[in-house]
């Protein structure tokens, strides 16, 4: 991977789109990549559609402009597809990963998508079962790794475990749940 891979995360304020981009960026960094992770800053409140972004590259990244044609789009909340143009700028060989109980074919129809490759995973369901709350962002990292092949899953999980250990030192169950969620989403994500 010499060229830069650009990722756009679509979520709602409070859903963890920003955190997902940060966590994924950090994991890629510890695996030797050059990375950027940045949110879209606005006055939007909890529940409002928001986006965050990653650039991942084996070369230094000096671009500081917004991402308009992402290689990968991740949708944290399926209801966003009703109003947000989630496929905007997605190239013919792009990937879109959606947190939904729907099948990829249904999503393709819904988005009227011609090119690209569609993946779906019930990240909300997985997080409810593993973490106990609807926080789809961590499982989607697992789905992203599987769909994109950007990073080896074991190293990514190991890195995330270390990050979470620092953050949730007193709550081992949260760490366990998150790691299980990533692993399950990695295994359960369906492509076309």
């Amino acid at each position: 991977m010499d060229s830069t891979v650009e990722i756009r995360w679509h979520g709602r304020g409070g859903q963890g789109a920003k955190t997902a981009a940060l966590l994924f960026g950090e994991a890629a960094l510890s695996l030797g990549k050059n990375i950027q992770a940045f949110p879209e800053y606005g006055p939007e409140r909890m529940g409002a559609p928001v986006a965050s972004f990653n650039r991942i590259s084996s070369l230094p990244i000096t671009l500081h402009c917004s991402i308009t044609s992402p290689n990968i789009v991740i949708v944290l909340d399926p209801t966003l597809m009703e109003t947000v143009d989630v496929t905007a700028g997605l190239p013919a060989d792009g990937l879109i990963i959606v947190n939904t109980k729907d099948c990829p074919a249904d999503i393709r129809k819904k988005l009227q998508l011609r090119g690209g490759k569609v993946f779906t995973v019930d990240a909300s369901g997985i997080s409810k079962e593993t973490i106990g709350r609807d926080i789809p962002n961590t499982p989607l990292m697992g789905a992203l790794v599987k769909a994109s092949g950007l990073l080896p899953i074991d190293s990514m999980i190991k890195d995330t475990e270390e990050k979470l250990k620092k953050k949730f030192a007193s709550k081992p169950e949260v760490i366990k749940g998150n790691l299980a969620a990533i692993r399950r989403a990695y295994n359960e994500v369906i492509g076309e």
Partner: protein
Amino acid sequence: MASLKELATRKDPLTGGHRMCPGCGAPIVVRQILLASKDPVVVVSATGCLEVSTTIFPYSAWNVPFLHNAFENAGATMSGVEAAYQNFKKKGKIDQHINFVAFGGDGGTYDIGLQSLSGAMERGHDLTYVCYNNEAYMNTGVQRSGATPRGANTTTEPAGKVSQGKVQWRKDLTEIMVAHNIPYVAQGIIGNWSDLTRKAEKAFSIRGPKFMNILQPCRLGWGYRPDATLELARLAFETCAWPVYEVENGVYKISKPKEKKPVIEYLKPQDRFRHLFKPGNEALLADIQAEVDRRWGQLLAKEAPRQGSGQ
């Protein structure tokens, strides 16, 4: 006092389509207070959640004239609006009565805007200043303010390994306003629309400076389910953590809960106080209860005894 049916015939001062969080209390404060005005209103807002989220160009949620200037100057800005109005009235250019209402969050009122507010009150402008008080700087991400209660977790005075959130007690702005000897000061909550609209009606019936300090739970900064906004405010009243009262021309009138609940019933449902319930913090909880009791007692003592007054 206007019934809900009557209030519902008035034009809604705020449209939907603003970008406040789902379940936010601030627009509830605005709607309940402004709906209570029979006369037209003109609004000034300090910078803050309410202002930012209701006026993203070209979308304004305000169905009434609205002006935003800066963070710390809602009092002064409204002073200017009101002075111009008085001038036009004197010259016969306008005869319509208008209620002037300034809104500020606790940051814009207790802290950075206190001087401007104090000046406006002291100069006697005919305006009502409403603090929608969510007890921290929510717009910038839950930083402590002078209104933040002791023990609350904020991003600039967080709960950590060696400290348990905000160390200091909150400042009593309502009493500072009472000390301005203005004709009407009220402290209230959202969650009791009849009390809040009645207080607003009273404020609008009085000429001169009025101040209202309205506790408004913030789901982001306080951490609770979005449908519990009004319920939490009621708990603040029922535990006397946030006394509900009014001071008209120096005379106190206090709303007393049927039964004063322990303050932990109010603290427990909120994420910002979660750390207080960890083992080792019992003394701090007791401390908070003691301070609530002390302040409540102090307030009760200010109310003139009803018996024997001949009224």
